[in-house]
């Protein structure tokens, strides 16, 4: 019997790739520097050596090419798992992703499915230079036909990636790069909880923080801090942004009556707006206060020395909690994310 041991999210992702390569000969891993080097974040470390260069290989440096080539390989029955080196470096593939990856099953009346995974290390918090820190999940989530997934811990790194690889549809797999080195005691393999389900990471009764990916650990910290101030905070981790688990989110907010959406991404017209809109609509009669958003500022990602000011942190969440009209007084001066 295996027992739980401390595993980083990066290692869990590597194990998921290994187990998928082992279990299914049609799974292939390719992208820039994923072969000999094992990827700039070492997520594919050792795969080429252990499974052969046929199964894990480097490509020319061209993201549209990588994604388009993967589409073609799907036509012959392969299941490519491709890596985009950083968030902003997936943009050259945007046309291939939106016009083909997202639409292929639909435009062929279900005759051509694309069981591929596009791995995108995303978001900031690691002192990266510009173009290496974008929160780009909103672009994909807004595109019908794409599943968008983001783990917040090692267990989910493993579980969600294996589910994504086995999924008959294309999955944009967003990896919060700031969490690659975060450790957790996990017992692998484990495919729990089910794909498409959000998870309550912490129980609480006063307010629900709905969050995902890179912001989950921060939200949990904020919940701890809030607890010291006497608030009981529930934290919901979306895990899969698409499909969206309305049930778990709405049940939580219906119970707590208050909601804050926490995301590192700029808020305007993105995922956090969607969550706020859905909760506001579906929990209208349960809400004691407006749904607030604590998100990244509406600015291009700042230089490393200023990223702390940009990133939503514990203090901003606590401020938002304090403004949840506990005394039923409206406060519309908040100027946090998504202004």
């Amino acid at each position: 019997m295996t027992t739980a041991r401390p595993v980083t999210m990066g290692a869990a992702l590597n194990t998921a790739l290994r187990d998928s390569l082992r279990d299914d000969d049609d799974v292939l891993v390719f992208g820039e520097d994923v072969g000999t080097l094992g990827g700039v974040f070492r997520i594919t470390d050792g795969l080429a050596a252990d499974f052969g260069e046929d199964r894990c290989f480097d490509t020319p440096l061209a993201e549209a090419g990588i994604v388009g080539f993967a589409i073609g390989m799907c036509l012959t029955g392969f299941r490519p798992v491709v890596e985009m080196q950083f968030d902003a470096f997936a943009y050259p593939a945007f046309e291939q992703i939106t016009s083909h990856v997202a639409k292929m099953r639909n435009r062929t009346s279900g005759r051509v499915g694309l069981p591929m995974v596009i791995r995108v290390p995303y978001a900031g918090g690691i002192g990266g230079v510009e173009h290496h820190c974008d929160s780009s999940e909103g672009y994909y989530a807004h595109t019908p036909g794409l599943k968008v997934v983001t783990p917040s811990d090692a267990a989910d790194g493993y579980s969600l990636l294996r589910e994504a690889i086995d999924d008959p549809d294309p999955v944009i797999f967003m990896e919060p790069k700031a969490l690659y080195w975060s450790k957790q005691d996990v017992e692998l393999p484990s495919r729990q909880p089910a794909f498409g389900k959000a998870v309550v990471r912490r129980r609480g009764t006063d307010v629900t923080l709905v969050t995902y990916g890179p912001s989950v650990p921060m939200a949990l910290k904020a919940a701890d801090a809030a607890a010291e101030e006497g608030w009981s905070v529930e934290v919901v981790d979306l895990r899969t942004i698409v499909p969206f688990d309305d049930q778990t989110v709405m049940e939580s907010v219906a119970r707590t009556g208050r909601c804050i959406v926490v995301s590192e991404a700029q808020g305007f017209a993105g995922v956090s707006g969607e969550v706020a809109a859905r909760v506001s609509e579906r929990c209208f009669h349960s809400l004691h206060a407006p749904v607030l958003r604590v998100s990244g500022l509406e600015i291009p990602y700042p230089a490393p020395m200023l990223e702390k000011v940009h990133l939503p942190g514990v203090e901003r969440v606590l401020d938002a909690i304090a403004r949840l009209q506990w005394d039923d007084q409206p406060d519309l001066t908040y100027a946090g994310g998504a202004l």
Partner: protein
Amino acid sequence: METTAQAATDALLPSARPVQLLDPSGTEVPQAGTARDYVMPSAARLREVWRAMVIGRRFDIQATALTKQGRLAVYPSSRGQEACQVGATLSVRASDWVFPTYRESMALVTRGIDPVEVLSLLRGDSHCGYDPIATHTAPQCTPLSTQLVHAAGAAYGEQRRGRDSVALAFIGDGATSEGDFHEALNFAAVFESPTIFFVQNNKYAISVPLSKQTKAPSLAYKGIGYGVPAEQVDGNDPAAVLAVMDVALEHARSGKGPFLIEAHTYRLDAHTNADDATRYRSSDEVTTWLDRDPIARVEAWLKAHGELNDDVVAATNAEAEARASELRDRMNAEPKVEPMSLFDNVFAEPTAQLEQARAMVQAELDAEATA
């Protein structure tokens, strides 16, 4: 730092002028100075191509007519490009892959796909009327050049499966300017993917002439930059198209990687029926190209060699006519579209949200029906 051997680069460069085996009058042209040896196809093959061109052209004219009758929303004609559409397509096997653009209706009909299914995209009842897997034919592609990378991937996939299938990817002259063209050629070369990139240089990208598209000596000179052998061919000479395709296919199928073909041709009609070609080109220019008719050319050769007689011509024309009229009849029927299908193929399994949307639309339709 090594020297690039002259021989190695010569093997990649195209002939200085487009390969031509038959001149516009159907007379065989002595081969000299071409980059490779090109072999005159057999009379039987030329007859087969001739026949498919006759049928193809009639289909094309019919499709344009259908736009006037409101039975087709839009149609991009390939009249004038028959030697490319038919010649390239008949050169590959059913087990090979074809990656068409929106202009390849004639090629797809030649490939044996039901013409009504071919026209589905342009009629507007579905995005792709045929089964890409069963036909080994990708959906007609409108985002320019994007299909080329798919072709490179599919051909590589076939090779990985141990099969000797190739991919034939069509593209227009204008689309060679897109970044995806570059990435596709490069991926195919690096992975030695057996892909034939077939550029129909019909001289215009909608209104933009080739001179505003590129300063290359010819588009075929793009091959060497990827280490991909390339050739330019008279795209209105069916014999030359077959001969160059043969070389390209032999190259690709024998594991040597991709091949780039630039076929010089001309679109006689406007970009689509919605386009007004008089805005950007002269009728003189069109007339010049009418004189380079691919059908007449090979017909003259076949007749001169006693390989075609008037009876066969008449019978073939009749067949083309019959097919066109059958197509007209079938296109006159209102296509069946199923609103509920909108939710079926977004994902393999609809999400809870899609199920809700489906229920909403169903309720609307029910309400309409009872109203």
